[in-house]
């Protein structure tokens, strides 16, 4: 192997681990947000995405995303199965890392983004259909968009990043807008949960939600600065911006709630944190700390308002993937057009307030729209095909009884015998078959 930079390699390997942890973190966040009767299904959808997308990514996805570009739309299939890749390196001179470390780092993004979508279809999806969906989606939707934004091949690569020149540091299009738009399509195809807007569907465990939010924040400190692909000054800027934006958005969301509802909530803090981290994702390597603060505050306010849209418009995006990731991602992508500053990153650009004019904002807008249209329509097609063939939604009785028992033959909790009585019920028919 050509000489690699050990510090960058260590950094990227650690960041890979940090981002990987975000998927179990998301599983906790999502699992806590649903009712107890479907908590496991929610958790399992994330773990299944982890397993499935790991395999699809090394087999095909990585190559589709980072292989040689066809018209800026998608990579080729020369690097499947990671065969012959073990002694290759990735990166610019002086910052080379083993190629498989880059593959792994990108893999963790693909996994997380796929898992995010499950939030749109809580409580009602057939598990087998979800597994099938993740296989197809990770290859047909995720990999191409990753190619668009990050397939840099000297101006001959992905159309968003390499040709148009829109900026997306760590996944505003690839991860956030992509998941938001796809989630909307999924929510529309599967339809509303029984009892949507009528029954209480409050989070069954907010401590689990907060744990998930904490793990996600932690992981995001690898997700964003790791996207510098080196332990350098840009990573440092991305690191502190990530922190600032998340913090600003928490405060903004809590303030919004305090004013509108009279009380600031714990769930609001978790939601604000994620909104702020989402919004800074594309911007973290291109803006100054004060720019990050502005983006965070904007994301907190806009997303706090946006999560209510589903009730007005009537689509059941159960855990607000659209309102938080989609809308937050747009805030961040457009925020770059406003706040980007070459003082933060010489390889970046200047946005509106730093005298760069409307050019960058225009590019960012095109990137946003392109991602939205593609992700929404492709996901709608995939989900519809699955729904019309093997079915994507469980029977109404199964939904009412809860997908944990009906899809997985499990229940999340059995606290029997702990506080005030022991219960009840289960006896082994057969220890083992």
């Amino acid at each position: 192997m050509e000489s690699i930079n050990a510090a960058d390699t260590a950094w990227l390997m650690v960041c890979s681990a940090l981002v990987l942890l975000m998927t179990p973190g998301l599983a906790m966040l999502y699992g806590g947000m649903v009712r107890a009767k479907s908590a496991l299904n929610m958790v399992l959808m994330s773990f299944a995405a982890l397993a499935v997308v790991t395999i699809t990514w090394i087999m095909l996805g990585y190559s589709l995303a980072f292989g040689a570009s066809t018209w800026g739309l998608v990579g080729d299939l020369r690097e499947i199965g990671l065969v012959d890749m073990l002694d290759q390196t990735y990166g610019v001179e002086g910052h080379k890392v083993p190629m498989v470390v880059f593959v792994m780092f990108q893999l963790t993004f693909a996994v997380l983004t796929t898992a995010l979508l499950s939030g749109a279809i809580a409580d009602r999806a057939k598990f087998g259909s979800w597994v099938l969906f993740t296989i197809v989606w990770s290859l047909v939707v995720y990999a191409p968009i990753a190619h668009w934004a990050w397939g840099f091949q000297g101006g001959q690569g992905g159309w968003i990043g390499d040709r148009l020149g829109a900026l997306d540091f760590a996944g505003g299009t690839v991860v956030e807008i992509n998941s938001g738009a796809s989630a909307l399509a999924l929510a529309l195809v599967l339809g509303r949960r029984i009892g949507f807007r009528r029954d209480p569907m409050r989070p069954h465990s907010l401590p689990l939600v907060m744990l998930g939010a904490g793990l996600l924040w932690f992981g995001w400190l690898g997700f964003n600065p790791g996207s510098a692909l080196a332990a350098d000054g840009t990573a440092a800027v991305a690191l502190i911006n990530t922190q600032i934006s998340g913090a600003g958005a928490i405060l903004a969301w809590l303030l919004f709630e305090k004013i509108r509802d009279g009380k600031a909530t714990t769930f609001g803090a978790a939601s604000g944190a994620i909104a702020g981290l989402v919004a800074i994702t594309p911007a973290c390597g291109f803006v100054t700390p004060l720019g990050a603060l502005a983006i965070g505050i904007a994301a907190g306010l806009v997303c706090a308002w946006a999560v209510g849209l589903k009730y007005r418009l009537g689509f059941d995006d159960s855990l607000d993937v659209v309102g938080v990731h989609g809308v937050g991602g747009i805030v961040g992508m457009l925020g770059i057009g406003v706040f980007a500053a070459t003082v933060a990153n010489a390889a970046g650009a200047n946005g509106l307030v730093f005298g760069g004019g409307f050019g960058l904002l225009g590019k960012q807008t095109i990137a946003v729209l392109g991602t939205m249209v593609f992700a929404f329509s492709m996901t709608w097609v995939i989900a519809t095909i699955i729904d019309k063939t093997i079915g994507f939604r469980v029977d109404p009785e199964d939904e009412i009884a809860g997908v944990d028992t009906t899809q997985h033959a499990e229940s999340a909790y059995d606290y029997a015998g702990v506080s005030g009585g022991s219960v009840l019920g289960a006896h082994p028919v057969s220890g083992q078959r």
Partner: protein
Amino acid sequence: MRLITAIIKPFKLEAVKEAFQAIGIDGMTVSEASGYGRQRGHVEVYRGAEYTVDLVPKVRIEILADESDVDRVVDAIVGAARTEKIGDGKVWVTPVERVVRVRTGEQGHDAI
């Protein structure tokens, strides 16, 4: 004075509450229960070991009412909680000798 006890399916609680409001009953005590009967439970599997969970989640409702209200209460419950699927539950009525409201010490009819 009578005590009407009903075991119903949990998701029917809201409907029963509404039926009570319609007939002017505005007090009751609710608790969790598990039912065993014709309605079967379900099977769970953990690392290949199968368990039959044969108790089904139910809600118990208790209403103290004047003798004259008993029929209306029972009818309201039966009307609201019925799904016509096995496991809809039971309602029963027992005699009560005395009722006291803790806050005031009022007794009998005035206590409910």
